[in-house]
């Protein structure tokens, strides 16, 4: 991988980290608020279904984590397992794409229009 790509990957991880820091703060506050009086499926979905603002927020959250996590994972693979090069890059990219797909599926389930 070229030096330029390495630098851009580093930048992508830090910028996604900044987005994630804000997302996680909101997520933690929401979570602590939501568990106050116990959770029920009807109550959760009543709050979430069809809510476009939250849908967009969590879609951004998923996108940021799908950038952030695989870059970190790639570093761990290189430093801990000494797994470097193309195969490690491809593996990390697949992890990122899977996270994005699975995450967006979950966001759609919770914030989408209703039962699929």
């Amino acid at each position, binding site marked *: *991988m*070229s*030096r*330029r790509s*390495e*630098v*851009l990957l*580093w*930048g992508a991880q830090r910028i996604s980290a900044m987005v994630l820091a804000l997302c996680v703060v909101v997520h933690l506050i929401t979570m602590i608020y939501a568990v106050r009086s116990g959770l029920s499926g009807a109550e959760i979905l009543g709050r979430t279904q069809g809510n476009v603002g939250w849908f967009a927020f969590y879609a951004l959250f998923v996108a940021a984590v799908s950038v952030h996590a695989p870059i970190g994972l790639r570093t761990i693979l*290189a*430093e*801990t397992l000494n797994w470097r090069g193309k195969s490690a890059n491809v593996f990390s990219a697949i992890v990122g794409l899977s996270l994005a797909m699975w995450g967006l599926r979950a966001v759609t389930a919770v914030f989408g229009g209703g039962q699929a």
Partner: protein
Amino acid sequence: MENLQVRIWRGQENGGFQEFEVPRQESQTVLDVVTYVQRKCDPTLSYRFACRVGVCGSCAMTVNGVSRWTCRTHVDKVAEDNKVEIAPLRNLPVIKDLVTDMSEFFDKWAKARGRFAGATTRKDGFAPVSPESKERKRVDAGIECIGCGVCYSACDVVTWNKDYLGPAALNRAWTLVNDVRDTERAERLAAVAGDAGCHACHTHLNCTERCPKGLSPTAGIAGLKRAVLAATLAGEI
């Protein structure tokens, strides 16, 4: 005072520790201990030193697992149960006993373009650089490095990534990036970019924790990370 129990590394990478007894003295340094062993116990012990007062940076070793200048480390400060373990610096090939081959350490300074490149000659006048300028203050913060190798030895990223330039070389590059007289800024930023350069740093602060001069290579490396990213986004790298 009871005698000090000293374990000293002998041989090369596959060597082992040898035990010696050394009489304790007041204000005794670890370098004093090594010197005593070499003069009184075993003249074949190899080690490096020159100034004995923290100026030259050649007596750095691993004392009780931590990289230090032996000349500025009092035995009182590091002895545990009257025992001291002395080994060569980490992350460098061992030549013999306490002497490491520091070639790669200095080669990486060259790779990081650690040499000043100016546009003027000795015929020209002085370049006015205000001591109050942001750049000059950044240079001041890192310029006192004497190249002892303690940070390089303490750095885990060097262990994990053999190509990593290391804290000292990157700190040197950062002082030059902030030298307003220097003419090779772009080339230097390109040389320290990416996975073998500043972006491999994980901010463990091992170097900052261990630097005998109290410098923070981590701070300079962070500055390089930003400068290189900005240059990359601007299409200069």
